[in-house]
C-alpha cells in the first residue's frame, strides 16, 4: 500500500492569512451560498448583538442568510442533534453546533443511537448528511468545559470524525463534511481558533494560516505529513500537532529527526500514511489531549502493532492526558495537557542516538 498522505507546506500556498475562526466561517458561508439546503442550528449563533456562537464562528451569517437558515435554538442539545438528524434525512444539510464539546454527552443518544445508525437500520435507504461542530480542549474552565472527546465518537460505527489543526485544513475539511452524505462530528480546538476581541483565549496559539482565494476541498481520510523525518514518527491531532512540531524542532537540535503526522480525520483514518511512516522510522509516538485509557491513540497503537510489528525498533509510546477529569487550576492543567517537554522526553526514550 502506498501512502495517500499529502505533504503540503504552507509556503506553497497563495492566499490570505486567516485565523481558524475566519476560515471556518468562510467555509460555512461558501457552502450556504452554494446550497440552500445548508442550514445552521445552535445556541446564540445568530442573535443580533450576540456572539456568533460561543467562539464567534457564525458571526455575521444570520445577517447574510437570515434567521430561517441560521437558527437559534433553546438550550437543548439532545434536540439540536436529533433535529439535525431528522432534517438531514428529509433532505436538508444541517450544520449544528454545541458551545463546548462536553455538551455532546447530552446529545449522545441522538448521535450514537439515531444519526449513526439510521443508514444501517434502513438497509441503506436513508442518509443523514449532518455536521455537528464541537470545540474541545482544556482552557482553565475546569472539568465540564475542557474535555477532548474524539475517541467516544470514533468508537461509534456510522459517524465520521474530523479534527483539523489549522485554518487551511479547517476550511477544506468543513466544506467536505458539509457535502458528505454521512453524519460528521467536527472537532475544533479552542486554543487554535485565533478568536479576537472579547473572545480571545489567553493561552491561544497564533496559528493564522494561508487560505487560498480559490475553492478547495480536503478529502476525509488523508493524513498530512507536516514534517518529514527519519528517526521517529509522531502522530497527533488538533493542538497536539503544534506541540509535536515544537518538540520536533527541539529534537532536531539534539540530532533526532522526527516525522510529524497530522491525522486530520480520525474516521476514516489514513492507516497507510501511518504504517508507511512507521516502516520508515521504526518508532512511533502518538500524542493526544484525550485521556490515555481508550483514547484514539490506543487504536493507532493496536493497528500499528498488528501491521508493522516487524518494523518496530522500540515500544510504541503514547503521550496523553492522565486518566483524570481536566482540573481547573492552571498549574494542574499544565500537568494534565501533554506538554512539549513530555513529547521530547518520550522521543528520547525511544530513539537512542
Amino acid at each position: 500500500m502506498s501512502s495517500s498522505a499529502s505533504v503540503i507546506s504552507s509556503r506553497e500556498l497563495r492566499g490570505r492569512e486567516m485565523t481558524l475562526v475566519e476560515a471556518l466561517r468562510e467555509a460555512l458561508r461558501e457552502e450556504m451560498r452554494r446550497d440552500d439546503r445548508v442550514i445552521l442550528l445552535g445556541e446564540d449563533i445568530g442573535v443580533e448583538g450576540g456572539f456568533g456562537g460561543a467562539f464567534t464562528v457564525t458571526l455575521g451569517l444570520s445577517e447574510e442568510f437570515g434567521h430561517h437558515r441560521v437558527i437559534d435554538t433553546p438550550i437543548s442539545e439532545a434536540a439540536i442533534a436529533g433535529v439535525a438528524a431528522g432534517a438531514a434525512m428529509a433532505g436538508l444539510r444541517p450544520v449544528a453546533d454545541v458551545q463546548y464539546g462536553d455538551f455532546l454527552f447530552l446529545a449522545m443518544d441522538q448521535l450514537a443511537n439515531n444519526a449513526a445508525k439510521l443508514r444501517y437500520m434502513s438497509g441503506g435507504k436513508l442518509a443523514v448528511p449532518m455536521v455537528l461542530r464541537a470545540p474541545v480542549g482544556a482552557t482553565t474552565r475546569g472539568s465540564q468545559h475542557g474535555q477532548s472527546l474524539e475517541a467516544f465518537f470514533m468508537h461509534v460505527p456510522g459517524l465520521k470524525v474530523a479534527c483539523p489543526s489549522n485554518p487551511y485544513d479547517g476550511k477544506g475539511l468543513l466544506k467536505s463534511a458539509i457535502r458528505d452524505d454521512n453524519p460528521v462530528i467536527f472537532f475544533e480546538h479552542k486554543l487554535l481558533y485565533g478568536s479576537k476581541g472579547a473572545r480571545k483565549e489567553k493561552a491561544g496559539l497564533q496559528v493564522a494560516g494561508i487560505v487560498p482565494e480559490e475553492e478547495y476541498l480536503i478529502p476525509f481520510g488523508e493524513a498530512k505529513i507536516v514534517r518529514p523525518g527519519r528517526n521517529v514518527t509522531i502522530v497527533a491531532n488538533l493542538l497536539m500537532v503544534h506541540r509535536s512540531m515544537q518538540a520536533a524542532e527541539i529534537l532536531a537540535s539534539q540530532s533526532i529527526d522526527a516525522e510529524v503526522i497530522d491525522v486530520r480525520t480520525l474516521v476514516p483514518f489514513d492507516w497507510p500514511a501511518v504504517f508507511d511512516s512507521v516502516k520508515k522510522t521504526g518508532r512511533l509516538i502518538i500524542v493526544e489531549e484525550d485521556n490515555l485509557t481508550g483514547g484514539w491513540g490506543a487504536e493507532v497503537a493496536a493497528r500499528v502493532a498488528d501491521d508493522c510489528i516487524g518494523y518496530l525498533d522500540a515500544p510504541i509510546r503514547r503521550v496523553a492526558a492522565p486518566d483524570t477529569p481536566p482540573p481547573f487550576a492552571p498549574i494542574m492543567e499544565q500537568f494534565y495537557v501533554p506538554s512539549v517537554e513530555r513529547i521530547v522526553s518520550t522521543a528520547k526514550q525511544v530513539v537512542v542516538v
Partner: protein
Amino acid sequence: MSEPLPDSEAKLTTQQRVVMYRRMLLCRMFEERVYYLFLEGRLPGTIHQSQGQEASAVGVCSVLRSGDMITSTHRPHSHAIARGVPVTSLMAELFAKDTGCCRGKGGSMHVGDRDAGMLPAIAIVGGGIPLASGYALAFKYLKQPNIVACFFGEGATNIGAFHEAVNMAAIWDLPVVFVCENNKYAASTAVEKVMKVKHVSERAQAYGIPGETVDGNDVEITYYAMQRAAERARAGKGPTLLEIETYRFAGHSRSDPGHYRAAEEVASWKERDPIARYEKQLSTEALITPEDMAGFKAAIDRELEEAIHLAERDPSPKPEDCLSDVFVS
C-alpha cells in the same frame, strides 16, 4: 460574615431582615471585587457573575436550615455566599489555590462545599436538576427532615433533564424546591425566543405541582415564597416550581459586553436593584441608619480584602495533585 440565620417558619424578625440585607451586600461586593480581579488578570479561567440577582440567592437560602442542600449553576457565587460557604474558601478557589473549597480542582463554575450545604456547582445547563431530585430522594428514604433547593436559570427549563427530574420529584413527592431564576436571557438568547408560555411557572401544571412567579428583586417576597415551598416540601407534599423574576446587571460571562440587551432595559432593571430597594425599605422603617450601612460596607470591604490577601498567599496545589480524587480510595 457567615452568621447563621435562625430557622423561621414565621415572620422575619428585624434581626433576620438586617442579616439578609448584609448578606446581599456581601454577595454584591464580592462580585464587584472579583470582577476587578479578573480585569487585572489576577484570576484564571472565566466567570459568570450575579450582580442584580442577590435577592434570589439570599431570599431562598435564608429559609434553609443546616442539613438542607442546594444545587447551583455556572453562576454560583451568590448562591455559595448566601448558603454560607466561607468567603475565604470561595476566594481561594477562584485564585486556584489548594485552600479553595474545591482545592483548585473546581474553579468559579464549580464552587460549593457539601459541608456548608452546597454541592459543587454544575456548569452543564440543567445538569444539577436530576442531582437535586436524587438528593431529595435520599432525604426522604433516610427520613431526614431536610429539603433541597435547586437553582437553575430559565434557559435550563428547555433541557430534557429538567423535564425528567421535575416529573420524578413530582410523582414521588420529593422534598425539593425547584428555584428558577428567570433573568430573561440565556447567554444572548431572550426567553421569549425559546419559550412559548409567558411564565416558567406555568410549566408546573404539566407535572401536577404548584408553580409560582414572584418578584425576585424583592428579597422578602422571595423569602416568603420560598418559605411556603419549603414548608410544603418538608411536610412531604412534594416539590414546587418557584420562578424568581430577576435580571443580571453584568454580561453573561467575563467577555460579554451584552449588546443584545437594550440600554433602556438594563437601566430600568437597575432602577429595581434589589439591594437599593431593600436599603430604602429598611431605612424607611428606621431599621438601619446610614451609619449602619456605612459600617456594614466597611466591614465587608475589610472581610474581602482579607480574603484576597489570604488567597494570594495560600499555597497552590502541586501539579501532580491533578491525579488525586478520581476515585474513593
